């Protein structure tokens, strides 16, 4: 159906453009905002891929929590001094990296070209119930480890961010 393709190019194009836009921004907040738009279009892509739960989580976790956190820190840290001293663009590195990227994409395209074109035939149930059932049966250990990791990250962030009483 043509509608799916339109939406794929809409969301995918937005994602790529916003990613590129993010790279070229000077102000960190502009970059963060364009990255939020990028993540939102990712959520659209996930919704098209029969993964509504992942799409909702994308918006909640990436756009709502992680990017919000980054923006919050950007706003907390006084960037005016930093931004006045404009970031030195790494031109040579950029050119080299660009070349590497182009080569890699070319290489990747060639290798993928060798593969049979695959189309999404199977429809899966990406609902919360289904994902939850799988997550808490097959992946329960991973899940618990992940929650431990989050706890450790939380404690670590608090310890790191804590202002020392007397800073040397």
């Amino acid at each position: 159906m043509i509608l799916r393709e339109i939406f794929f190019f809409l969301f995918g194009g937005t994602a790529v453009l916003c990613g590129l836009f993010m790279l070229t921004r000077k102000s960190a907040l502009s970059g963060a905002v364009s990255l939020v738009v990028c993540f939102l279009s990712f959520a659209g892509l996930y919704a098209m891929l029969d993964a509504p739960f992942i799409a909702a989580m994308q918006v909640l976790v990436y756009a709502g929590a992680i990017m919000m956190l980054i923006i919050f820190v950007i706003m907390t840290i006084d960037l005016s001094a930093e931004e006045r001293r404009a970031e030195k663009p790494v031109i040579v590195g950029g050119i080299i990296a660009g070349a590497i990227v182009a080569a890699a994409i070319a290489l990747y395209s060639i290798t993928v070209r060798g593969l049979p074109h695959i189309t999404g035939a199977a429809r899966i149930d990406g609902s919360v119930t289904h994902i939850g059932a799988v997550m808490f049966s097959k992946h329960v250990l991973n899940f618990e480890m992940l929650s431990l990791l989050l706890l450790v990250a939380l404690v670590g962030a608090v310890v790191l961010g804590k202002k020392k009483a007397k800073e040397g």
Partner: protein
Amino acid sequence: MMNSDWMFLGTTTARAVFMWGLTLVFILINIFLERKICAFVQDRVGPNRAHICGVRLFGFILNFADAVKLIFKEDILPPFVNKAYYIAAPAVIMTIALMGAAVVPFADDLTVGGFTLPMQALNLNVGFLYILALTSLSVYSLVLAGWGSNSKYPLLSAMRSSAQMISYEISMGLSLVGLVMVFGSVDLGQIVKAQGGLIAGVVPRWGIVVQPLGALLFAVASLAELNRTPFDLPEGESEIIGFHVEYSSMKFALFFMAEYANIFVASAVFAALFLGGWQIPWLTTAAIKEHAAPVFRTVSIVALAAMMAVAALLVRFYRKRPYQWKDLRRIEGPVLLSALGLGALLAVAGIVASYVITPGPIMAALLACGLQMAAFCGKSFFLCAFVILVRWTLPRLRYDQLMALGWKIMLPLGLANLLVTGLVLLLKKG
């Protein structure tokens, strides 16, 4: 496209437009309620001047005067703002506010002529995750407004409010997990359907009955997310400066329209999750369809009684009023009373019709749908009124109190609620 496709497209659009329109109407209703409830709580009269041909509708018409004023105000774009963010912020918050009500079901599935329509603009199977996602996105509006204004006070306010909203989002999500465990679904349509039963044959199995603590936590958290008064530090109109000080005209109004739209969305979601949504207590859809005529008669009688009561109040007011109007407003009393009389006539006609006509299945289904929509709107209306009443009751929290409440009280309570719910469910199972 096939016929059913067109049907699907048409009905979906109709449902979306209905919910959208309802949100917009509730913006007006909420502004009206805010003014009138505030006035009556403080023993004032409230808006009573603006009128169309003398009819003021108890001050409702002031909304239109207000809209005209705001539209024709000068729209100032301050010179050093970041234009893109500055303009985007009100648009973002308004868009999100209007999208919010889409997942809330407003009636039971309507079955007409073989078609079954879910009465929900967007029946996603991620349900309230959609609402949580939208809530987390609406923080961006505040951040963009604060940063885009390029001014200290909006920036400080934006940081304050984003910290507040992030903190309370967690409590909000956590308060709902218990409910989801009880009803076994995150889809709001399913949750509302699951609330139709009775506990011990008497008490409706509403979310507020099975999850009282969850309801309380959700109510407090949604008040905080709405930036309504005990938690209105983002706006802080009287003491601290809000994130929208640099805005003027319709852009400023959009922030407030979004706030009032969000009050409706939060009320609708609360009604759906904890007050049974469209469920009329002790009256299931099947029962309405089966006894369509008596139900209709009862509704007509109740409507008649309500209109008589309103008319009595009006007459009492007009007779006891110690002054006379000299302008067009003097025809207001007769106009309102004759409108009420017309309504009463209709109600009487309904009572008569319920004896004469035996309704067919389509009429019965439509009646059930209409009654449930009315129940949903009524619940939302009362919750909106409650939110506004709370504003005129409670003083604002200090910032440290706000954070302490969010992290030290609501979060542990939410976890405890989760634990208790899980234990009870486990014990029930086996």
